[in-house]
Structures are given as structure tokens and as C-alpha cells.
């Protein structure tokens, strides 16, 4: 499986930020590939560049140099419209701060994941994903009526509902209890393995280690496995 064409290929990616104290190099000729069906965990100390790497992978930020190839297309220097299209077609995001729409119900928030991908809002698919994250009974609730862990599961459901080729998740289990974290881990595993998609997850949570195909550490701008 790992020998097939990678869904994600980062090659010689560099990213620096200008700071008052000088130039801060965050990613230094970084290489990373993620194959279909693969779950890669990314860990590293705070400020090591995990979020920057996730942003560059998700076409939310441009690398200074290097190749950012998603589903065979080099998108680092592509026009914004192609990058937007790539996000619609291939990516699913699970943000650490969830970013749920407070005035939409759980069901509508999840359905929004389909709308933003220009997919028909298939209520059966929405129900299916809600059942997988254990929120069927709360589908008509508003986010303000949910606990932090439940909101995190809604964010996760929204990221997965459109069957993305690559799931990008930023600390997706940080607010989940043991049981919920295991459920989410299994959900990632089953959806990735069954659909042949992939996942790149930044996490400090060792509870996710069992589902990982690879665990990478980002340190001094480079990936170590």
C-alpha cells in the first residue's frame, strides 16, 4: 500500500518567518509523503512548526520553496482558485478550536461539510456519520448545548462526512475522554482503511498511537520517524 502514489508529497519544503529578532526557519527542506490508506501522526514540541506544516499541506499557507503535491498536483505555486478547489475536492479539516457555526444545529453543521464540498446533502450520510461519533441523539442540539468533547466530535464528523482523500486534524482528541477518544480513533481508522483515504494528525495524545501507521516527529524543521 505504501508503495502506491502518495496522496500527499512534500519535498524540500522550506518556510521561514521574519521576526524582530531575525529570520525564524520553521520548516527546513522538509520531506513527507502520505500514501492512500495511511494514518500519520505528527508530534513535536510547541512551536516546532506542526501547525505551519498542516497549513501548508492544507493549501492555507504557501511554502517559501519546495513542492506541495496533493493528489498528483503541485499546488504550492498554483493560483488560489486551484488551491480552493483542491481543498473542496480532497481535504477534510478538523480544527483544534472546532469552529462550529453556533447558530446551526449539530446536523446542519455536519451537513455544511457536504455543502462546502459542493456535494448533495445526503441526510443518510449525515446520520451515518453522526451515529459513528455517537451524536445521533444530539443532532438537533446547538453547539452551545454540547460539551467540549461533543463539539470536537461534531467537528470531526463535519471533516469526515464528505469522504475527503486526506484528513487533516489538529489535536482532534484533546478534549475527549478515554471512551470518546477510542471511538474517534476507530472512526479514523475505519474511514481511512475502508475508503483508501489518508490522515495526517497532529497530536500529543498517545491514545491515538495504536491506529497510526507512522508516527513522525517534527524537530528543527525536519521530520524524524
Amino acid at each position, binding site marked *: 500500500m505504501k508503495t502506491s502514489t502518495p496522496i500527499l508529497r512534500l519535498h524540500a519544503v522550506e518556510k521561514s518567518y521574519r521576526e524582530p529578532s531575525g529570520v525564524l526557519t520553521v520548516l527546513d527542506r522538509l520531506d513527507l509523503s502520505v500514501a492512500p490508506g495511511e494514518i500519520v501522526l505528527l508530534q513535536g514540541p510547541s512551536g516546532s512548526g506542526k501547525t505551519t506544516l498542516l497549513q501548508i499541506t*492544507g493549501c492555507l499557507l504557501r511554502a517559501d520553496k519546495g513542492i506541495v503535491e496533493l493528489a498528483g498536483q503541485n499546488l504550492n505555486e498554483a493560483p488560489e482558485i486551484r488551491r480552493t478547489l483542491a481543498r473542496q475536492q480532497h481535504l477534510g479539516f478538523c480544527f483544534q*478550536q472546532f469552529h462550529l*457555526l453556533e*447558530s446551526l444545529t449539530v446536523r446542519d453543521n455536519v451537513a*455544511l461539510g457536504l455543502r*462546502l464540498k459542493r456535494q448533495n446533502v445526503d441526510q443518510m450520510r449525515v446520520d451515518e456519520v453522526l451515529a459513528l461519533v455517537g451524536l445521533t441523539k444530539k443532532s438537533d442540539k446547538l453547539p452551545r448545548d454540547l460539551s467540549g468533547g461533543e463539539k470536537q466530535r461534531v467537528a470531526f464528523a*463535519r471533516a469526515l462526512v464528505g469522504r475527503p482523500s486526506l484528513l487533516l486534524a489538529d489535536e482532534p482528541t484533546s478534549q475527549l475522554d478515554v471512551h470518546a477518544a477510542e471511538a474517534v480513533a476507530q472512526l479514523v481508522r475505519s474511514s481511512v482503511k475502508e475508503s483508501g483515504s489518508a490522515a495526517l494528525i497532529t497530536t500529543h495524545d498517545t491514545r491515538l498511537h495504536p491506529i497510526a501507521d507512522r508516527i513522525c516527529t517534527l524537530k528543527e524543521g525536519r521530520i524524524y520517524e
Partner: protein
Amino acid sequence: MLARTAVTILAREKGKYVGVVIGVAMSLLLVLLQFGFFLGFQRDITIVGDSFDADLWVSQRTLEAFDYVSHFDDLSRMQMLGDEDVLTATGIIADWARFRRMTDGATESGYLVGIEFADGVKVSLGTDPSLDLASVLGVPGNLLVDEKHLDRIAPKAAEGMGLEVFGLHANVAGTMKGKKLFSTACLLVTDMENARRFLKSPANRVSFIAVKCRPGADVAAVQARLQAGLPEQRVWTSREFHDLTQNYWIRLTGIGPVLLLSAGLAALVGFLTVFLSFSQLTAEKMPVYAAMKAMGASTAELSGIALLQIGVVFGLGCLIALAGLMVSLAVLAHTTISIVLTPGIAMLGVLFMASCSVAAGMRALLRLAKLEPAEAFRA
């Protein structure tokens, strides 16, 4: 596809939007009322002169405004009628007068205008069309007042009680509609003979002469000819005569600028209220918009959501403002406060506020266009 989402957000967050809707409504109402008051003042300044269907006006040479009258010899009118392009020339006498209410003996000042109605320049006083002004006002003592001043001038007029003008008995023989001065003084209109009697003016004196030219006549040429023959008087076109008084009260006194300033401030407050409210609405949602952009929403779609919400809020605000305006106009109709608000002016007000909303919308669009979806990770 996201329109439904936008509407759902509006419906669920109606509590938050109610404040903005009310802000838009109050701003629009304030702008319309303030401009209406200014336009009402502007109309009333020249309400008497503008009621005449005259092409030219003749006055004493040093006239500052219609209200500052000086008299001159009526013989010059014969000279005017000698011009082949002059159809008719109407003598008008005007002056300030003291009148006393017979009901309670209280005295007030009014502006008395006497007009030669028979065969003269047409004048529109908002009276009952069936009223023959020449014959009704030809009766000694008869005069007209604005319907809104009727109670003030002759509270018991309907019961045969009248008033005294400079000690002479007068009767309110009819009412005018929308013919009152911008000041609190009452406008009293009668025929020339009555006015001369009240004012104890010699029979050969007039304050103004309104001139109507023959159809197709070159008004400027007539003006030049009459002016050449009347070196002691000033011959004005109707526009010049109108502008003279407008200029005096609007520019040379503080009244016009103050009213215009308050109308301008109302517009500024309206602009800031609408602009800041809509900008704030968009700013609050930036992290969510960033997340949606990260998940695949285009700038156009996010702009559509923002504009749809602004449009709905603006539309509701306009409806409430127009309802408030109807109520305000109904209330003002029973007062002597002048306001001019035509559907065209209301439309201009709505367009002004719409442009404020568009400006706020453009700012929101610019922010959305520049919005980096990476903000969703940093929030």
C-alpha cells in the same frame, strides 16, 4: 447553496440582528425626518411668491427678501402693461400687521398679503376650488388663513366670531392648505382693497407686481425692456425672485445652515450606525468564515452570505423606518411643523442608507477577500 445556511443563521441569531435592524430603521427615520424638516423650511420661505404663476416680479430696487417689503408707486404697472409681450400684471401689497382675536382679546402679529385677483396672474392658495376668491375676498374684511392657523387666529370663526386687524373687523372667509410662513407668524391673505384698508395704505402703493408674459415671449428680453423703463425698481425673473429670498434665509441667516447641519449630522450618524453595525456583524464571524474558507468555501460564497445577511437586515430596517415615517407624518399633519417628504425623497433616503450598507458590505467583502483561511488554525 449556502443561501439556506445564511438564512438559517439569520433566523437563529435574530436576537443579535434585531438591534442592527432597529439601528438601521432609526437611522433612516432620522435622516428622512431631518431632511424633511429642512425641505419644509425651504419650501415655506418662499411659499407666497412661489404660489404665483408669474414669469417676472417687480419690486423696490433694494429688496433683500420677500419678507422685507418696501412699497412703490403702482403707476409703473401701466408702463408694464404697455409692453406687447406682457399679458397681465398683478399688484400685490404685503406688510406685517397686528391682529387681535375677538374671543379673548389677545394680539399677535401676522403677515398680511393683498392680491388683485380679478384678471390677474393666477395664484394657487390651496383653497376650495369652488371658492371664487375675487368675489369672496372682495367683501370688506374677508380674508384667508392656513387651515392649521384657523384655531389660532379665530377660534370661534365658525360661530361668526372674527378678529380685528389694526382695529378693523375681519372675517375668516376660507382656509388655505399648506400656505403658512416658516416663522410662527400667521399668513393672512385678502384682496388688494381689503389689504390697503387694513394697512391704511394709499391706493397707489404696491409692494410687488407679478407679471405674466404672453405665451412664447422671450422672458429675458421682456425683463430687460421693463428694467430699462423702471430704473427705480428691480425686475426679477421668477427664479431670481425665488433665489433672492432663499439665499437670504438659507445662507445669510443661521437658520438654513443649522437645519442643514442637523440633517447632515443625521446622515452622518445614520452612515456610522449602519456602517459600523454591518462591519461588526462581519468581524464577529471572521473566525468562522476563515474555517469555512479553509473547508472549501470560495470568497464569492462567503461574500454572498455576508451580503445576503446585510440585505435582509437592511430591508427589514427600511420597512420599519417607512412604517415609522408614516406614523410621524400622521402625527405631524396635526401640528404646524412643516415637513416635505415625497416618495422620491424617501427613495433618495433609502438609497443613501443602501449606499452606506453597500459601503459596509464592500468593507466586509474586502476583509473576506483578504481573509487567510490559515486564521482558522491560529484562532
